[in-house]
């Protein structure tokens, strides 16, 4: 029998790495397996958002606020390792109707503890001098932040290892091991690993691991593209998006949706998002998506028309039908825990998720109620749409 650890985490993306860090800090013996290396899935194919502005009121917003606090307080000393930047978000309204809905949205958000202020046209131009002449006003969210996600995942894992965790790359899990009705370890391409608890932190691929325990965790891929421009002197200073973005994030439509999200990076390149489509793990390039994103971005910042795109990439957001992540112990499969399904908010929610789950794994009371994220909220039916 291989040497067991208290906690075995499957997946070295941002979620698995964050759990590993906080669990190791709790004094738990931690092993992390990944089928490749650190941040090899969606964590390296995203923008590193830590946002409050786009969250619906409720448990997800609460978790976002909690997680932002973890980034800013618990992990303050490491902020530079992953280029933490409180760049602030601007949601731009270009129509009278969206201007009114922005007013309503920010009022509700403010009463839930989100800092949000309305900028008029001239204040908006002060904040973003190159904004389109069509832009009427904006909601400004100074708490919205960003990290470099690959660095964040890689460094959290490294810090976890410094605190005693063990990382095994290139270890693909092939089966969950059960004893007396309890998950007590995993079989992998790197051998057998025994553990007191097994954590499924495999993001978009979480339903596969859950399936090994014959439980349904309906996480499905929701594809998105990001285009990256040539490096430029700073011209865009916030994360800037259009009011319709907030509607798209909350939508469940399977068809292509695109709304502009444009931001500068410390390296000088500008990231242009976003698109959403549910097409399984189809990795082909969707020119319609790129075209829509290009038009949307040019509408927000006309100067982008002549700026060159150097590359684009796509990722598969781990999407749950009710837009809430799956976090906690799975009562249907004792010994198995999940932390997955954070959709497009995984980077922001990761460290809060990690800290809370580590508390639960250590048998402590959690700082926040995890029951809205409970895995067994899904009935144990086979997945309706098997998109993998």
């Amino acid at each position, binding site marked *: 029998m291989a040497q067991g650890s208290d906690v075995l985490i499957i997946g070295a993306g941002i979620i698995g790495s964050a759990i590993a860090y906080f669990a190791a800090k709790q004094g738990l013996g931690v092993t992390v397996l990944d089928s490749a290396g*650190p941040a090899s899935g969606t964590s390296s194919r995203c923008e590193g958002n830590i946002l409050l502005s786009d969250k619906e009121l409720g448990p997800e917003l609460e978790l976002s606020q909690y997680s932002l606090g973890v980034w800013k307080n618990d992990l303050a000393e490491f902020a530079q390792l992953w280029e933490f930047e409180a760049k602030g978000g601007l949601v731009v309204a270009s129509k009278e109707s969206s201007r009114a809905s922005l007013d309503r949205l920010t009022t509700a958000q403010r009463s839930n503890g989100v800092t949000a202020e309305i900028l008029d046209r001239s204040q908006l131009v002060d904040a973003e001098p190159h904004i389109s002449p069509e832009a009427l006003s904006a909601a400004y969210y100074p708490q919205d932040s960003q990290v470099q996600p690959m660095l964040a995942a890689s460094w959290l894992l490294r810090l976890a290892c410094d605190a005693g965790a063990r990382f095994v790359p290139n270890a693909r899990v092939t089966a969950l091991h059960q004893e007396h009705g309890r998950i007590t370890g995993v079989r992998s391409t790197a051998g057998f690993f025994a553990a007191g608890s097994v954590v499924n932190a495999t993001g978009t691929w979480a339903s596969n691991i859950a399936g090994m325990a014959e439980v349904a965790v309906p996480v499905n891929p929701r594809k998105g593209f990001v285009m990256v421009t040539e490096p430029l002197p700073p011209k865009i200073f916030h994360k800037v998006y259009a009011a319709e973005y907030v509607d798209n994030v909350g939508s469940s439509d399977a068809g292509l949706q695109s709304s502009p999200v444009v931001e500068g990076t410390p390296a000088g390149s500008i990231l242009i998002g976003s698109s959403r489509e549910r097409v399984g793990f189809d990795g082909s390039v969707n020119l319609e998506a790129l075209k829509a994103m290009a038009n949307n971005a040019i509408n927000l910042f006309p100067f982008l*028309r002549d700026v060159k795109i150097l590359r684009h990439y796509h990722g598969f957001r781990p999407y749950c039908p009710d837009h809430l992540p799956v976090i906690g112990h799975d009562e249907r499969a004792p010994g198995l825990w999940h932390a997955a399904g954070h959709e497009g908010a995984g980077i922001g929610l990761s460290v809060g998720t990690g800290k809370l789950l580590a508390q639960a794994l250590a048998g402590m009371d959690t700082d926040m109620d995890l029951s809205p994220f409970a895995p067994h909220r899904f009935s144990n039916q086979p997945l309706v749409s098997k998109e993998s």
Partner: protein
Amino acid sequence: MSQKIHVAVIGAGPAGLAAAANALAHGAQVTCIDANDQPGGQYWRHRLEQPGRQPGVQPDSTGHHDWKTYLSLRAAFDAGIAAGTLAYLPNTQVWMAQQREDERITLQLTSATAAGTQAPASTLTADRLVVATGAYDRQIPIPGWDLPGVMTAGAVQALIKGQGVLAGQRIVLAGTGPFLLPVASNVAHAGGSVLAICESADLSGWLKNLKAPLAVPAKGIEGAEYIWDLLRHRIPYKRSTVITAIHGAEKVEAVSIARTDKTGAVIAGSEERIENVDCVGLGFGFTTQLELLTAFGVATHMDVDGSLVADVDEFQLTSGANVLAAGEVTGIGGAALAVAEGTVAGYRAALGSGQAPQQSEVAKELKTISRHRAFARAMHQAHQVPDYWSGNLEEDTVVCRCEEVTAGEIIQARDELKAVDARSIKSTTRAGMGWCQGRVCGYAASCLATCGDKHEAFAQSVANTYKRPVSIPVPLGEIADLEDSPKE
């Protein structure tokens, strides 16, 4: 009457010209897309032809081999243009290539019409595609390689051939492979001094496999001409010698070279300095320009020289339906091989979907291909890319020049953050994220990430650096203006 097969050829170098010419000869409608302003590619790059040049007036042939082959391919090419069966799109690049559901090919084009201006975006759909995009000099990082005056050996050559400009007066050429010889020869003919050619190989590899070079006498004659030039111009040709550092304050001033032992390690105490150098040309073999092929997900393999190359069948068809490849993208082997492959590809591409290709139609070319591939293998074995450089890096030696990422940063990411391939090196350090998208540093980053391993992990790492879904930078406006449905 059946409709003509529409063949798109990307590249107008030896392989592309031959493919276009032979596809025309077999009745196809051809579109040839090329990044340069006139046909010839790197190999037959020549001085700008006079506008309105009359057919029959020959372009300048200074410094060229096989110029007769060029002229005959060019004649067929020009005849195709005149007859309206060939559309030639110079100064044009493909930024994305896709296969449609009906297995036809769609290409997104971008053109540089004049400095700073862009022609409107356009989309081209073809029945068959021949990718003949060639290769460029493989570079490895050496302390000082980012000083002004240091360039690829190919750049030294291109400046002479294309502009008649000598990149320096006192030039050191270093690297490996026969290509350093014609560069030295052209520099000498143009009046420059080649202070040394530093060849890292000991050349004993050629003796182990004499059959292959003897089967290609033309290469022997070409080689003899170069050796004659070296002797005549007293150019020192140093075997088992590597360049270890390039020195200079504002620009290159001197280089350090050293001898290597049988294992390729630098022999302590053998270092010497060459002073008063104003130009260094580096070339460690070539890297294929493969991203348009990898965009189709075609099968590839790692060649003997560490280049990722496309798998092709005997008629140059890749594993992708209707996608053919010819020239250096199927394995670095020189212009004669490229012409033969292009000729076969042009024939195959022009065939109707029901027609089976016949070996007899291209028997001569198939023989040439077989002999030249054997020659290329022998050449690669004799001129393996040296390994000494990784131990020779300084912490602040820049590896990724676009994003200014140093060797120290890459090694830190590897050792501390478990970045074990070029992709994770890129994610964590930005090496390969800049303008060239890893074309220059991808090989070196892969070597460093995999600690000099030359097997599966290295091959996988290199293959990943070829994933460039935007093949060349394209203005956002051209993406915004894409047509909704591709025109035929």
